[in-house]
């Protein structure tokens, strides 16, 4: 078994807000992330797949194919968008780094032929990242 990781980048804006809470509670919990006009990040996405090495090709997965799948399923939807306002899954979930990792997993699961998703890692900044392994 080999793990293989492909990186991608996207730039997007977001803010944190829970409609069920009064404004003061949103400000207390989310701080400046609750500024309603949003703010942005350069996100780095790392998608790790796991599988056996094909004896003929020597690949776990065709990297070009993986790159195209990530581009089609995630980057083309998230890049240069406002996550809260323009990406459907964040109409009901706050676009935190954790929730973005989970959403990316859902977008990619079952779409990569010949390999299984192992981990989705999303860096919001170089010093802050979330991992999701498909656990309930």
């Amino acid at each position, binding site marked *: 078994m080999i793990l293989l990781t492909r990186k991608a980048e996207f730039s997007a804006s977001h803010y944190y807000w829970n409609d069920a809470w009064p404004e003061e509670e949103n400000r207390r*919990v989310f701080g400046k992330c609750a500024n309603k006009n949003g703010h942005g990040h350069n996100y780095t996405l790392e998608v790790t797949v796991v599988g056996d090495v094909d004896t003929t090709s020597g690949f776990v997965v065709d990297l070009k194919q993986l790159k195209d799948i990530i581009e089609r399923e995630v980057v083309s939807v998230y890049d240069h968008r406002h996550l809260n306002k323009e990406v459907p899954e964040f109409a009901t*979930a*706050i676009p935190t780094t954790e929730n973005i990792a*989970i959403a990316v997993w859902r977008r990619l699961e079952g779409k990569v032929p010949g390999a299984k998703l192992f981990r989705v890692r999303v860096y919001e900044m170089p*010093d*802050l*990242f979330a991992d999701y392994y498909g656990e*309930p």
Partner: protein
Amino acid sequence: MRAYFSRRYRISASHRLHTDAFSAEENRLVYGKCNNPHGHGHNYVIEVTLGGQVAPETGMVCNLVDLDACVRREVIERFDHTNLNFDPLFQERVPTTENLCIEVFGLLQAAFHKAEVVRVRIEETSNNSFEYPAGAHR
């Protein structure tokens, strides 16, 4: 859903690798230039990983403000700009980065209760890094 949240912090500290259990020659042989008598320093990067259920109302494993405060109090204020050999934790143990990893994990596990501390990974230089617990891939 269970997810993992990691944050990186920086400290600068000095240390000297030396044990009284070895002779002077053995110390020199085992630790090389890390045994130089007056020590040396590193810019350490400490990566702390928390695991837990993502709370639907916040979208978070835990609020990073709480983690930052805990790491600042327990780790940064304790070790930053210090000589690790003088810390009580390293009176019986050599302040290798392996041991620093274990001690930082222990300090945070004892002090932080808002999510599970699952891993501490320390980069001593950009070429050397250490993780505890070993094998905690998540």
